[in-house]
């Protein structure tokens, strides 16, 4: 049996880049510690509720198909898409607020603090602009579908604007999150 007794020496040689990365990873994982991060009650209720409903309906249909096929619910296939996509878009706010968007911050970690601050501002401003675009054009898409009376081609003939409206709704919550982030930067001094 042997241990790696040379480890402390080697550790000293750890390059600067790796140390920076390690620190960053540590922060990341701590931000997402093993305890489940909190979310606001509204989000928990709506997002969790929609996802739960979708899963329950989907499972119900699997059972129904095998044991009581006459009781299959024909709206499930269509509605679970609407439920889950709405849930996903409504999550974008907290996702943005908690900075959990996927990004490549390898190079950023090597920037000077001033440059880092600049880049963080840039990303948030771009995010806000993009949110506004999504709200505006997402609204147009939903409104057009409403105006033209677009529906799904199933027995249900669901008005599609109800589904399309998830897009501007997601834009709104994401836009609010970006505004809060920018406000935090202004007032909280870059945190």
């Amino acid at each position, binding site marked *: 049996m042997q241990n790696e007794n040379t480890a402390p020496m080697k550790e000293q040689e750890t*390059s600067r880049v790796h140390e920076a990365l390690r620190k960053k990873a540590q922060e990341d994982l701590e931000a997402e510690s093993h305890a489940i991060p909190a979310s606001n009650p509204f989000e928990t209720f709506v997002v969790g509720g929609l996802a739960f409903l979708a899963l329950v309906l989907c499972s119900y249909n699997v059972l129904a198909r095998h044991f009581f096929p006459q009781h299959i619910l024909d709206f499930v296939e269509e509605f679970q898409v609407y439920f889950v996509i709405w849930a996903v878009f409504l999550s974008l706010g907290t996702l943005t607020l908690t900075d959990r968007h996927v990004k490549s911050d390898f190079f950023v970690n090597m920037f000077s603090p001033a440059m880092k601050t600049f880049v963080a501002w840039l990303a948030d401003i771009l995010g806000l602009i993009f949110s506004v675009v999504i709200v505006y054009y997402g609204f147009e898409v939903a409104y057009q579908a409403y105006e033209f009376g677009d529906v799904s081609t199933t027995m249900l003939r669901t008005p599609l604007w109800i589904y399309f409206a998830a897009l501007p709704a997601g834009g709104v919550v994401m836009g609010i999150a970006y505004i809060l982030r920018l406000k935090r930067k202004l007032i909280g001094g870059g945190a």
Partner: protein
Amino acid sequence: MLTMIAPVFVLLLVLGVPIFLTMGITSGVVFAIEGSLTPLAQKIIDELNSPTLLAVPYFVIAATFMERGGVAKAIIESVTAWLGRLPGGLGIVSVVTCAIFAAMCGSSVATAIAMGTILIPAMLRAGYKPSFAGGILASAGTLGILIPPSLAFVVYGVLADASIPRLFLGGVIPGLLSATMMCSYVYYFAKKNGYAQREPVPMDVKVKKTISALPALSVPVIVLGGLYGGVVTLTETAALSAVVAMILALFIYRGIPIRDFFKALTYSVRSAAAIMIIIAMALAFGHLITETGIAQKTLELMEAWEIKPWQFLLFVNIILIFLGMFLEVFSILLIMVPIVLPLLDPLGIDPIHFGVMLVINMELALMSPPVGLNLFVISNISNIPLTQVLRGTVPFFLMMVVLLILVTYVPIVSTWLPNFLMGPA
């Protein structure tokens, strides 16, 4: 157009702007120049209107509940009872339990965390080199996306319009090969370094541990059995694995208290949203790539240069390994697939074969420096310095490269099983 837009894309990426924004803004600029942004918004919401795509959030929900639900402990204890006695027993147990967990869960990071949290401290206590222990977990954790079910295959299947059940099957043989290679290396390393063997475990303990692991071990049977046994569709498979994971986490292994259920569910939808928003942008981005006709031009260029499919695959692998050093895996997949996809058919490359090759590359990306998510995760949960984890993964990385070459140039390794079980495509 593309020559103008490509630098913007790369710049935003390097500046650490979120991937969805990088893709969304690039696409937005092109759509705006072409006339209007309305079609972009329409494209995003239309592409998400797909039952198949639902498998992504469902599998992410399943992964969250499995990772945090206490499922890992039961599996590890039962496998340790059977295999712990071998030289390097705990290392072999790590690889095997990662493979088993991978058959339940579609995410590599979840696999590495769930298994690593318990197994690395155990290995360190048993006197394993930290680099060796960390290396095993960082590498074996990547099996999460190669052995089905796999989020990576789902996302690729959606982008490439390829059969996801076929892709899942395509990952089985490379996944088992990979696990076997890893086990052999662990065995060899433990023998060479004279690692102590564990006490044999009495049969009644083995049986007891196995019984308590049965609910967990039945997940792959229920989920994959359901998919291939003709009971459920892919989306239903994903939903079912999420429901089963919840039941295990809440009622059987009780890793998540019932009062936290909605909190955990909301949290997992949020993780799914991080991927879904990139997928939506990637699909819009792919639309642009199609419209620019760049694929056609590339193809003409490749014909002019007389580039053979094997050269093309080599080239793609090199680019993927390079991107894999710096980018997060889903980003690589989502950036690369829309660009490369239109070339596959003209070159006569099977999309299933290509998908498996791509996923092995993503495994490499998870363990290659400087940005390798599994390296970070393992270093973090075990407090083993990143460089040591990295050093420990080197032999495994090399084995995966061998596997990659095999899968790239011997298509039958990935295509035989799907063709055998599901008939020729």
